[in-house]
């Protein structure tokens, strides 16, 4: 069931897991919402880089990159991505980048 969340007057439609329903709705305010959920106090350049890589890949391909491809593109080991995004690359980083949650045999 779609719900709406809001930050500084900007609202976003989200699914049951709190992922953004429509990537095109992405705005910087979205990052603030997920930042709070993830317990990230300040965004570093490394966070921003992961988000940029994810968004760039998603715009080109309509899907999030495989985790190991994300590691390669950012140069960050999976462990470090978990340090940046405590919920991990899918539930943390992809969510903050405004990407949908992958489904299937995953």
């Amino acid at each position, binding site marked *: *069931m779609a719900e709406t969340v809001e930050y500084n007057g900007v609202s976003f439609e989200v*699914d*049951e*897991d709190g992922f953004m329903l429509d990537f095109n709705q992405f705005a910087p305010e979205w990052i603030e919402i997920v930042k709070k959920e993830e317990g990230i106090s300040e965004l570093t350049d490394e966070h921003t880089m992961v988000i940029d890589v994810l968004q760039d890949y998603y715009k080109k391909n309509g*899907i999030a990159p495989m985790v*190991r491809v994300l590691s390669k593109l950012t140069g960050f080991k999976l462990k470090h991505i978990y340090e940046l995004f405590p919920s991990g690359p899918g539930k943390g980083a992809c969510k903050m980048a405004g990407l949908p949650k992958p*489904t*299937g045999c995953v």
Partner: protein
Amino acid sequence: MDIKPEEMIKINTKPPAKHWMDIPADLSEGKFCYPAKAKSLEYLHLPNPRDWSPADEDWKLPENWQQIIHEGFKERLDKYRSLKVFMDVCVRCGACADKCHFYIGSGDPKNMPVLRAELLRSIYRNDFTTLGKIFGRLAGARKLTPLVIKEWFSYFYQCTECRRCSVFCPYGIDTAEITMMARELLNLIGVNIHWIKDPVSNCSRTGNHLGIQPQNFKEIIEFFCEDIEEITGVAINPSFNRKGAEVLFVTPSGDAFADPGTYTFMGYLMLFEHIGLDYTLSTYASEGGNFGLFTSSDMMKKLNAKMYHEAKRLGVKYIIGGECGHMWRVINQYMDTMNGPADFLDVPKSPITGTVFENAASTKMIHIAEFTADLIKHNKLKLDPKRNDHLKVTWHDSCNTARAMGLLDEPRHVLNAVCNNVFEMPPSTTREYTFCCGSGSGTNTEEIMEQRLRGGLPRANAVKYVHDKYGVNMLGCVCAIDRAVLPPLMNYWVPGVEVTGLHELVGNALVMDGEIERTMNLRMEDLPGAEGDSDE
């Protein structure tokens, strides 16, 4: 998971005081799979796309939903003799009652397969039998109400179509088919789940459940090849969509996307390169799995047809399928009458050993475990099982390969050739008696994690037995859903046990022509003993 294992294990098996027909399903948060999104249903032209929640009182069903279910039921009873038999023949002997992993893990009587089937049979009796029409509840019949639909939704998604109960049924009732029929009926009124409809929609659009586009599929495989070269020094040269190749190889997209399945994919690539197999991968038939099976026979047929269509287009001789579970249920039980016989293909014959796989004479598709077992039996592979010596492995027979195709000895033949330390779980939990991972048939979604951990308890319990007794630290399997769901199951119930596909172990043991000395396994972890040998 908020509930601790020592709490979850306290399972209440005391039956409720009330009659089962008077107990509504629990559809509170965490007890149901999220519903399919309207856009997936629209894309698939499935009925009643809408925004709704199972927690709501009103499910926004079509106005004539009762009529739709009644007519849909009738149509299926006429079409499938098996359904009619399964509705009539059960004598409620109870042989199946305690065989279901969900019953064992939850203690809920409606998870007894006999009672799960009664949820459907009660409507069958009411609508289609004289006895039921006259005597109603006395004859085990009841009227179709919205509460029945809610109960179906709850309990037919607490069945993973694993068919363990069917093994014990004296009549051989295929209870998975009962669940399949119930889900088909629910689909007619737009009651379905996101975790199944999203992959089905993706598969219809991109050829795989995850929505991997051709360029990404190719990029991922090339990425694997780079890693393999780093680990082994051997360059791997797969081809894509190549016409005239002898073999089309199809595996679940989970192997291309999610660890630890990705390491298994690397194992396939290494094996094929090593034996010089004339094969191709397809960026169109880029999915072995078939979530259509969890939707309807029409959807299953459509998704299955893609593989054969691609085999025909490319002009290959036959298909080798990867380590997938439910794909083999579709291939072995349904493909032949849905889309077969695949007369345009040849009966699979190993180009290396000359073995003809007569068992696949009609489907023209063999499982990679059969193919590799045959190579090993004919001494065609040089293997160094010592590289897997740090592992103590036990074998999980994936439900569908075990019970739907009888693939019991082939994986073990391979496993024993590539690993020195193999320990079997108790026999009542392996081979055709294997326990489900608890998350099959499209229920591997996170919002029902408690259900998954409960359903996976019997499997985990058997793993714990060999973990405690022999120090088992690795659980092998041949199914992509297994590889995705067993890691969290193990983390919860048996920490310290990791999960692997069969061909990851093969890739690690395989001595390839021209390879460098291995210091890392496919996960790029140092091989035990290898660290000390390095100069660093």
